[in-house]
């Protein structure tokens, strides 16, 4: 059994880890559709998007390990942390649900990431800016594809519209967490590393409002509920996804293909 590692606790490391974990966990979640998507084209689409997200996560976790100065590599950070040390928002760890839930969440996250990569392209950290410059191209395509499906479902059959509406009701309250400021946001903004996540809220809401208007769904009212995944306090689903991800590295330390 491989022991857990403790990631760096400094603001810059945590800021990069938080974004890397967002890509990592969503990438893992949508990979679950491999072999299960409703049509072959979407099976390919979801696994391709997963591949992009995991590629982005690899670059970010590698960089976080370098910033921390603790010598952790991407695999150690992906597979050997305890649950409380994963900093992704709860939104991305929720079970994949039905296809409507998956495409709506992908639209929400891809829109968020696109805005994030745009801002990070001007980061004072050259490596982070380079990662963002590449990821931006990928997220644009993900957003277009996911939003296309939101419109298809919302404007499709009664059943598809019903499922999309149900997915929105379930997902919306997890979006507020994306735009809460933490101490690491203040420090990242001050150092020029990247924006406070709250700075993306207005643009994100505008794009989501336009998308929902296209399918004649009202933007849900804000909830007082706040999920807390970014502080390491996750939903009950997180332990299961980590168990699946971590099993091999924990049981066979350092195992490679």
């Amino acid at each position, binding site marked *: 059994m491989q022991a857990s590692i403790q990631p760096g606790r400094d603001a810059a490391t945590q800021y990069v880890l938080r974004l890397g974990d967002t890509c990592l966990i969503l990438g893992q979640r949508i990979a679950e559709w491999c072999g299960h998507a409703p049509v072959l084209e979407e099976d*390919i*689409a979801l696994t391709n998007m997963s591949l992009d997200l995991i590629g*982005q996560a690899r670059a970010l976790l590698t960089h976080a390990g370098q910033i921390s100065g603790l010598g952790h590599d991407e695999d150690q950070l992906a597979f050997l942390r305890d649950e409380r040390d994963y900093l992704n928002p709860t939104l991305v760890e929720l079970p994949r649900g039905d296809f409507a839930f998956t495409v709506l969440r992908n639209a929400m996250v891809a829109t968020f990431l696109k805005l994030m990569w745009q801002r990070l392209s001007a980061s004072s950290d050259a490596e982070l800016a380079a990662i963002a*410059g590449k990821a931006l*191209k990928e997220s644009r395509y993900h957003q277009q594809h996911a939003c*296309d499906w939101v419109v298809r479902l919302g404007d499709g059959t009664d059943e598809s519209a019903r499922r999309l509406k149900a997915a929105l009701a379930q997902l919306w309250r997890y979006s507020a967490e994306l735009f809460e400021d933490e101490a690491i946001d203040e420090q990242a903004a001050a150092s020029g590393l990247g924006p406070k996540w709250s700075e993306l809220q207005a643009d994100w809401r505008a794009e989501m409002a336009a998308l929902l208007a296209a399918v004649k769904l009202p933007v849900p009212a804000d909830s007082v509920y706040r999920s807390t995944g970014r502080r390491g306090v996750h939903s009950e689903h997180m332990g299961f996804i980590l168990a699946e991800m971590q099993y091999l590295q924990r049981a066979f330390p350092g195992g490679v293909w």
Partner: protein
Amino acid sequence: MNQTAVVSTSGAGGALGPVWQVLGTVLDPEVPALSVVDLGLVREVLAHDDGLEIVLTPTYSGCPATELIEQNVLAAVAAAGLGPARVTMRRAPAWTTDWISPEGRQKLFDYGIAPPGPVDLSEGVPMHFVGRTPSGRRLACPRCGSLQTERLSAFGSTACKSLYRCMSCREPFEHFKPI
């Protein structure tokens, strides 16, 4: 390794022409009609006192061929007897399909893959139904040249491609996505 570049070249015409020629024979593992030079993956070749440095740029963040390309480049340089070499990855500026050479585009077309058009960032307004003809510009079928084509799938067999079909000759074909 010594970091001082004795010679630096970004194209086949320079002093390192033989190295670029060898790199021009290293095929992309997933699109074996094109070399890594045709694809614009080789950004620079530098000659240091103690060996060659070949600068590559990755295509997609998660492209599984990246590591294999690196190995193949080093193997080709070694097989040609060009001395010690190493590969460095350069992420910025991000790779774009605009870097695929004109010869590369022709090779793609001849291989049956519709080459990418110029990257247009105004394309793809996210809120609208995209349907099977995502833009005003129609793709020519690489088999019969017909413009009566439609998109079947936004994603294809590899990260860099999408899937189309021709309504005239009825054949499916792949399209290299512009990014």
